[in-house]
């Protein structure tokens, strides 16, 4: 087991393309270079530059942006530095919102995916189609529509009051709950589809076998089904969590923009009157580092799981 995180080189190299290998790979390298590495590198470099007043950068290298993120020197910058909690708490709030949304997506998405995957093949296509229909509409429009539904004098509250369940409208708009609901609704299919793909491949004979060996339904789910469909669940969670983390449509429209989320904080550095590009770049670098760490830890865990 010493070293080597890579899988054994069973199907790498020696595919017979010979001298064509390099020219055929060039388009991929160019794509990755121009559209992935270059922008990320640019962002990283900008985060170490000096801010120009009202937007732009001066080419003097400094750690000022990171200092601003981590250290608080008071409103007037003349106090001894203490840990700056402002931005950490914004990160924490975003992570929390994205986490709740991911959990909600999982709790609803797993049974949904299970249901679809256990229908007759012809029916499955119809169900999948139904799942994707709302997502042909622009995200902004769906978010605004959701706001219309849950507002104080919207249909949901009017129905609840009309049925006599409430006498005051339930305050939903401009709350954290509304933001989580918005994120949940925006990204639900990203949870359903990967889990569906995993469940569809699951061999139900295994469940029957376990049942014959006196495993209860709960045990079958925990010991057999979940480990088998785990890659789908993990993929779904990542696909929901990562975009939720940077989202700012739902927080702005449903949450009332009263508090920054990571996405709106970065946006403000480039478009707001503060115009602090290096700081915006630094926040993005810190966020990306965190996300990469989580993804790498997940990849390592997945590899270990496969070797078992």
């Amino acid at each position, binding site marked *: 087991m010493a070293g080597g995180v890579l899988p054994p080189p069973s199907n790498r190299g020696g595919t017979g393309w010979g001298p064509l290998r390099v020219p055929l790979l060039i388009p991929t390298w160019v794509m990755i270079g121009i559209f992935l590495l270059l922008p990320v590198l640019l962002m990283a470099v900008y985060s170490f530059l000096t801010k120009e007043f*009202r*937007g732009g950068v001066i080419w003097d290298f400094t750690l000022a942006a990171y200092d601003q993120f981590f250290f608080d020197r008071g*409103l007037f910058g003349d106090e001894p530095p203490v840990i700056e909690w402002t931005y950490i*708490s*914004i990160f924490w709030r975003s992570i929390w919102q994205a986490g709740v949304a991911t959990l909600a997506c999982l709790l609803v998405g797993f049974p949904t995916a299970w249901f679809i995957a256990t229908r007759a093949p012809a029916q499955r296509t119809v169900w999948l189609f139904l799942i994707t229909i709302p997502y042909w509409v622009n995200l902004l429009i769906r978010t605004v529509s959701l706001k219309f539904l849950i507002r*104080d004098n919207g249909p949901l509250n009017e129905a609840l009051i009309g049925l006599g369940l409430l006498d005051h409208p339930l305050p939903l708009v401009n709350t954290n709950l509304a933001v989580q609901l918005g994120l949940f609704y925006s990204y639900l299919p990203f949870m359903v589809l990967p889990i569906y793909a995993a469940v569809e491949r699951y061999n139900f004979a295994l469940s029957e076998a376990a049942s014959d060996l006196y495993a209860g339904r709960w045990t079958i789910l925990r010991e057999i089904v979940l480990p088998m469909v785990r890659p789908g669940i993990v993929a779904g969670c990542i696909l929901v969590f990562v975009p939720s983390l940077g989202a700012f449509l739902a927080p702005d429209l449903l949450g009332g*923009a009263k*508090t*920054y989320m990571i996405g709106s904080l970065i946006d403000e550095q480039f*478009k707001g009157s503060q115009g602090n590009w290096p700081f915006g770049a630094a926040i993005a670098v810190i966020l990306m580092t965190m996300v990469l760490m989580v993804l790498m830890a997940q990849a390592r865990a997945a590899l270990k799981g496969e070797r078992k």
Partner: protein
Amino acid sequence: MKTYLTTAAALALMAGTAQAEGKLSVYHWFEYMPQELVDKFEAETGIEVTIDTYDSNEAMLAALKAGKIGQYDVAVPGDYMVAIMGHEGLLGSFTPEELPNFAKIDPKWVDVPFDPARKHSIPYQWGSTAFSVNRDVYQGDINTLAMIFDPPDELKGKINVLDSQGEVLALGSLYLGIPQCSTDKAQLKALNDMLLNAKQYWASFGSDTAKEVLVSGDAAAGMIYNGFSAKARAEGAKVEYAYPKEGYVLWMDNMVLLKDAPNRENALKFMNFLLEPENAAAVTNYAAYTAGVMGVEPFLDEAIKTSPENNPPADGPTGVFIEACDEATQKYYDAIWTNLKK
């Protein structure tokens, strides 16, 4: 087939004129220029106009600084942004003789603090920023900024404020009676604390939703631009626009000639066109603000001419422009805004 040929010939001709007369590249706010007016200019001059839009002064500045300068001929910054763009060296200059209609500018808008003697800009539209209150919800006197910063019980938790640092901090400073670009620590601290306390009464921050939340009833009071408030009233909201006794924010959008404008001559033709009272009035009728040109009255819609949002009480308070602070001072205001939204 014949029609087809004629159309093709006409198109070719049009393309010919467009090329002969050239182009004009406008960088403008969204929904701030009626299409009919653009069509009229194109028909009169044969100049082909292309318009790109932005949604905030800061976004426009960022785009120009990021390399779009030299690509556009004219833009429409607000008052303080004209001053900033001047400092940044983003503006081109002209002389009054180059604009035959220069004399039609309302004299009170010629020597403005952000562009003395109008060397780079002409007035586009102006108005005020204060707030509106739903009169069904609150019936008392609304002409004080306390409605937003220390509201009566009826309005608590039902207030929308603009998601815009400049306006919120300027109105807050007016409420406390302190200068806009203060360096006095006690004053800055007071502003910071007052805003943090007021935030508990606010339901949301939103600029482009400022009208919609009043119409839908999500907010019972909201900071808003006067023209936006007039539109909310037209859409059925029972709102009244306030002229707070502590003062309110005045703003003026201006069309500026940009540095390195690729079509400078056409830009000046367009600016001159917009100083024509009939054309300035067309923008006013569309946007419900006020033109900075004399002689527009005969062309204005009746509703605009008499709207309370466009006619501040004669004995009422005066408005002030938002000031552009220097870098060292601006840092404090940025910190206060971040504190407010963290």
